[in-house]
């Protein structure tokens, strides 16, 4: 980022600008606000346990202010942290409000210090870990592992990644499927016909067609609509075959059906 030309150097001296930039230019290099806070805390030159969180908050807010001045856009989480630190600062400075519950400023500050110390500790041990002797770099395994070949056997193997990717491959097929009707909400006429044939034998009297809706299909509107249509079509089919009679008192009145008397 060499955007120096773009800045108007009105308010700041060249040296001040350079100093601000030295920190800011590298925003990309920070791994998030906590990392930046950790870097800032080093300027206090004290043990992390003795760090002044208040001072740190001010440093951070100063940083954000400078970034704004230099027209560097900070990612949202940096601004979230700034807002929180401003809140923390006010909690630390103002006398505690007894009506307010939630953690005190000191508790929040202590946790932030803990987070910084923990992050620093993890960095330190990560470095220690990587500095260890490593297999294939500092020490080595057997170069000719498969020695005596008397019986050749083939085994097949796979690792977890293969397994998960295989599963993902199958399952993502669904996401790109062409539009199809989901069968579980659709009743076909054939299904209704099969059902009606069985039921109609018991119903000698006029019965409301809606009472033939199968269980589990009466409440969900989508399923109900499908079942009603299928039932109606099936009734027409049965009537056509002469198995049942149909009647309807008036338009939109309930449709009733019964077994054809002479049939049984």
């Amino acid at each position, binding site marked *: 980022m060499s955007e120096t030309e773009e800045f108007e150097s009105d308010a700041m001296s060249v040296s001040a600008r350079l100093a601000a930039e030295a920190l800011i230019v590298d925003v990309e290099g920070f791994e998030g606000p906590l990392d930046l806070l950790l870097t800032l805390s080093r300027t206090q030159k004290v043990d992390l346990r003795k760090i002044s969180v208040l001072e740190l908050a001010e440093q951070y807010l100063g940083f954000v202010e400078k970034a704004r001045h230099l027209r560097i856009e900070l990612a949202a989480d940096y601004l979230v942290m700034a807002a929180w630190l401003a809140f923390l600062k006010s909690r630390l400075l103002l006398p505690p409000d007894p009506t307010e519950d939630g953690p005190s400023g000191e508790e929040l500050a202590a*946790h932030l210090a803990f*987070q910084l110390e923990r992050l620093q500790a*993890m960095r330190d041990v990560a470095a220690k870990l990587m500095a260890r*002797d490593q297999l294939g770099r500092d020490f080595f*395994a057997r170069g000719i592992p498969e020695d005596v070949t008397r019986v050749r056997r083939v085994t097949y193997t796979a690792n977890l990644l293969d397994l998960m990717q295989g599963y993902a491959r199958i399952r993502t097929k669904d996401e790109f499927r062409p539009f199809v009707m989901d069968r579980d909400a659709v009743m076909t006429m054939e299904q209704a016909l099969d059902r009606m044939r069985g039921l109609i034998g018991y119903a000698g009297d006029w019965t409301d067609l809606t009472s033939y809706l199968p269980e589990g299909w009466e409440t969900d509107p989508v399923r109900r609509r499908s079942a009603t249509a299928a039932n109606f079509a099936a009734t027409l089919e049965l009537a056509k075959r002469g198995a049942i009679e149909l009647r309807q008192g008036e338009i939109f009145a309930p449709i009733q059906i019964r077994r054809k008397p002479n049939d049984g």
Partner: protein
Amino acid sequence: MTDDVTRDESVAQNHDDKRDNDSLFEAPPMGEQERMVEAILFASAEPVTVKELEGRMPHGSDAAEALVYLRKRYEGRGVSVVKVGDAWAIRTAPDLGYLMQKETVETRKLSRAAIETLAIIAYHQPVTRAEIEEIRGVSVSRGTIDQLIEMEWIRFGRRRMTPGRPVTFVVTSEFLDHFGLESARDLPGLKELRSAGLLESRPPPGAMPGPETEDEDESPEGQSELFED
């Protein structure tokens, strides 16, 4: 897998010798057992467990004892007998690494994020993704976990019994092997970290800003109200 077959075969052979009781069977002399362990460990590039060793050795063998002698025998030599988790391997002495340029395998350079994530998993295991993010203060980038799994340095542990049952990560024995660790307890600085309380999971008091996770359910709760203005 296959060693089961081998084991079964050797068991079958031993059946004849084994008359009434295991104790009646005579195991080979310890010197012989030591040779066997030596041969098996030399032949394998991967660490071999005591159980596997005994499965391949004649019935009644005591691989653990043979290992004690073997380990001693190789002290100060060009190769040494090392413990990896609950398994054993022979590895070249680290001080001779410089002779081995030809054998050096180019490992993929790990990013700083990957190294930190690995260290957090090693020291905090089993650890969830949300916890890793809490510690680092940023979200774990796509592919970081993937890369560590692919290198077989981490694997899935038990799911955490908390809402959402998030998966956890732990380090593998390949990880231990790679860094020459006998067990995860031997991680450098582990004791100090623990006594400093830096490995405790301390939930943030009330509203603390955390990384923005992609998975809503995993993100630390309670931060949104505070910053909504």
